[in-house]
């Protein structure tokens, strides 16, 4: 086998933080290597160095035997390295062809040869089975199609080595499967691939070799055939992490009920006639491919939007005023989907972030004047009780890690003792240890009699925590199934909108009760 890529002794520091330390890895022709590691393990930094976005402090990169000059992405592209970014580097208002052709011709050419570009693009998309319309605007494409464009961009630059950063982060299970099939086919055409992931099952199913990165160092390298999920999990995290188990539920009265809720034009996707019931002491899990209305549903229950039609009942009473203070006063605790953009304001102090959503309460203000003493004391109590590391009452919240930020959010929500908890993607982007902590808190809230509405794209999480599971598809809610009956195939069908099996199971379950 020919060695197409070799990174040796790469070290990269940002201030006091060492992102990569003495990392070496190689890639052979026709091989798929998975780069496995948790968030913050240094995977993306390493690949950015390879692609010339960062300059390594030490070490060097060789592509097909040639040293790659550091810090020049142009050189990497010319050497045949293509990168498919996790956040697509696409312009939504331009066409597919525009996106693919940018930067592929000399800038000072008087006329762009679009006909030739189009021919090459069509040819590539046929060769590799990546179907796209060259004239479609990127904003009209689905996420899966966008990814195809990203891959085509790399191929258009004659990439022979392809680096994919978390390629399945935004794909459905089906899309992910077909992506890996395509990638496999590419290797038979002579391409070599590295993909970055923290998902064990896809690493196991799609790679030839796994390199595990932890705290910026390579901690292990295994042939995929000779390892297993459990070993990789332990290598990745560095210790065994047990997610807490769910004790049996003791459902009480109905706390939250939606009757035929519909809403359009807010929060992205619309809702069409959603009905559900959430009882005290139970967790209702809602799964679904992103963009099917879960954000809208969470926003609706959280008091951000009022429904166009239907009724939301809290504790049996129809909600009259749909706004945030009323939702919180009615006992709804809200864990937002996006910690950084929605849950916190990075440049405000920790104490301000803690009390802002309850600032109207007499505990934190009187006659429009903030009770700073009380607010800070409450914040300090949460920092202590919820073990928010690195936080100080007056420090800016931007400095906290994702896990600690989530602890603070959980703290500010749970300290109010909510009857209903809306948790949207509560463990997104967290590492294993932090996820276990979040799950523990959610189970605790359920244990003391709160109803938990868990909206998540992480199927393992939903199955582990929920007492009933629904899928949301195109703004409609599927029948609910008990987690014991859940399996990958059934959940996949539910998320795809095929609800016959789920309906049968629901009918059966309701009979049993």
């Amino acid at each position, binding site marked *: 086998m020919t060695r197409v890529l070799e990174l040796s002794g790469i070290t990269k520091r940002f201030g006091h933080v060492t992102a990569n330390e003495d990392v070496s890895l190689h890639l052979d022709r026709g091989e798929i290597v998975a780069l496995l590691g948790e968030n913050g393990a240094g995977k993306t930094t390493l690949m950015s160095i390879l692609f010339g976005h960062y300059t390594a402090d030490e070490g060097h990169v060789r592509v097909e035997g040639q040293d790659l000059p550091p810090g020049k992405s142009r050189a990497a592209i010319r050497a045949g390295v293509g990168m498919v970014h996790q956040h697509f580097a696409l*312009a939504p208002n331009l066409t597919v062809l525009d996106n693919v052709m*940018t930067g592929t011709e000399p800038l*000072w050419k008087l006329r762009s040869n679009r006909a030739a570009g189009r021919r090459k693009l069509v040819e590539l998309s046929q060769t590799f089975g990546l179907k796209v319309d060259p004239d479609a605007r990127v904003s009209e494409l689905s996420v899966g199609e966008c990814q195809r464009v990203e891959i085509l961009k790399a191929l258009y630059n004659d990439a022979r080595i392809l680096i994919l950063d978390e390629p399945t982060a935004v794909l459905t299970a089906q899309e992910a499967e077909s992506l890996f099939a395509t990638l496999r086919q590419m290797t038979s055409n002579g391409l070599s691939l590295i993909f970055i992931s923290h998902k064990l099952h896809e690493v196991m199913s799609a790679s030839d070799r796994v390199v595990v990165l932890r705290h910026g160092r390579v901690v292990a390298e295994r042939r995929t055939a000779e390892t297993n999920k459990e070993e990789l999990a332990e290598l990745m995290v560095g210790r065994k992490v047990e997610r807490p188990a769910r004790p049996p539920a003791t459902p009480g009265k109905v706390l939250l009920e939606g009757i035929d809720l519909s809403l359009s034009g807010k929060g992205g996707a619309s809702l069409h006639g959603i009905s559900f019931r959430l009882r005290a002491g139970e967790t209702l899990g809602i799964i679904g491919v992103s963009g099917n209305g879960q954000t809208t549903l969470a926003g609706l229950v959280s008091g951000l939007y009022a429904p166009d039609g239907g009724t939301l009942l809290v504790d049996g009473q129809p909600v009259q005023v749909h706004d945030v203070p009323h939702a919180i006063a009615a006992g709804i605790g809200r864990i937002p989907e996006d910690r950084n953009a929605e849950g916190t304001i990075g440049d405000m102090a920790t104490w301000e972030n803690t009390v802002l959503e309850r600032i109207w309460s007499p505990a934190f203000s009187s006659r429009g004047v903030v009770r700073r003493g009380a607010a800070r004391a409450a914040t300090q109590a949460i920092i202590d009780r919820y073990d928010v590391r690195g936080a100080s009452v007056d420090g800016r919240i931007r400095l906290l890690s994702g896990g600690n930020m989530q602890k603070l959010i959980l703290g500010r929500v749970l300290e109010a003792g909510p009857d209903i908890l809306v948790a949207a993607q509560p463990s997104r982007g967290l590492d294993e240890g932090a996820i276990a902590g979040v799950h523990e808190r959610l189970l605790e809230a359920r244990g003391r009699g709160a109803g938990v509405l868990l909206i998540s794209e992480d199927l393992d999480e939903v199955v582990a925590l929920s007492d009933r599971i629904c899928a949301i598809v195109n703004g409609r809610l599927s029948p609910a199934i008990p987690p014991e009956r859940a399996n990958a195939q059934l959940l996949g069908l539910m998320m795809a909108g095929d609800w016959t099996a789920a309906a049968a199971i629901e009918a059966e379950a309701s009979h049993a009760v």
Partner: protein
Amino acid sequence: MSVLFDILGSVGMWEAVLRIATPLILGTLGVLLCERVGVLNLGIEGIMTFGAMIGWLTVYSGGDLWTGMVAAALGGAMFGFLHALLTVPLGLSQHVTGLGITLFASSFSYYVFRLAIPTSSSPPTVEPFRPLEVPVLSDIPFVGPVLFHQTAPTYLALVLVALLAWVLYRTPLGLAIRMAGENPHAVDAQGIDPIWLRIGTIMAGSALMGMGGAFLTLAAFNSFFPTMIQGRGWICVALVVFASWRPGRALLGALLFAFFDAFQLRLQTVVEGVPYQLFLMLPYVLSIVALIVMARRASVPQALMQPYRRGER
């Protein structure tokens, strides 16, 4: 009514439209370039002031008219570079920086002007651009004098509209510029440094603004005086929104605007009982109306006003 028709039928009125439109066309193209690459340039008002002053001063101190135009373009590019330096690599607030550039460039212009011309009751003048008659075509009745009896910078501005449209939509550079305004990460991922691309484009756009200012002192009037730009720069910023960031529509917008301006100037002289201030307000009010009409429809460059730093999203 017949008064209106008299105005609308007069050659002078239509000839004035193109003349009034020229600085707006140049300024609007300048703003359009900057915004297409993702940077708001509120320095325009000051840059036009500086262009007007330095262009005039160059000619006043013996340079020829085109040297004046070139000086204005270079001066504009210089302030554009300053704006680019602060907003692109440093990523400072484009609003505040642009206003700072405007305040600095205009006060600097007045300072230099006063140094050069210490005291004068009436501002000194230069010999401005004379209308160039395009042979044959200028003999066409009505259309001839209106379109083909203009000064050279006006023809230049019209050529620049076509040129800019070509560059933006037909060349690799234009594609990169548009891409940088939509998503600079995408440009970077393809191996083009968005920082330099933005800096260069802002300088080019600012050069156009400087020329727009110089047109005022070297063709429309023949002297420089403080506050002569009178918000034309801000109007250009509004026109770009109206034009939906397209060069062709920018030309249309500038012409439409100039039409109303020329019309109200003539109307002032014939309509009695309406205070002249109401007519003078018209351009500003129209700009606001244009903004309202287009606000929701316009396809704003997605990365406008978003600073780009590698590794930050």
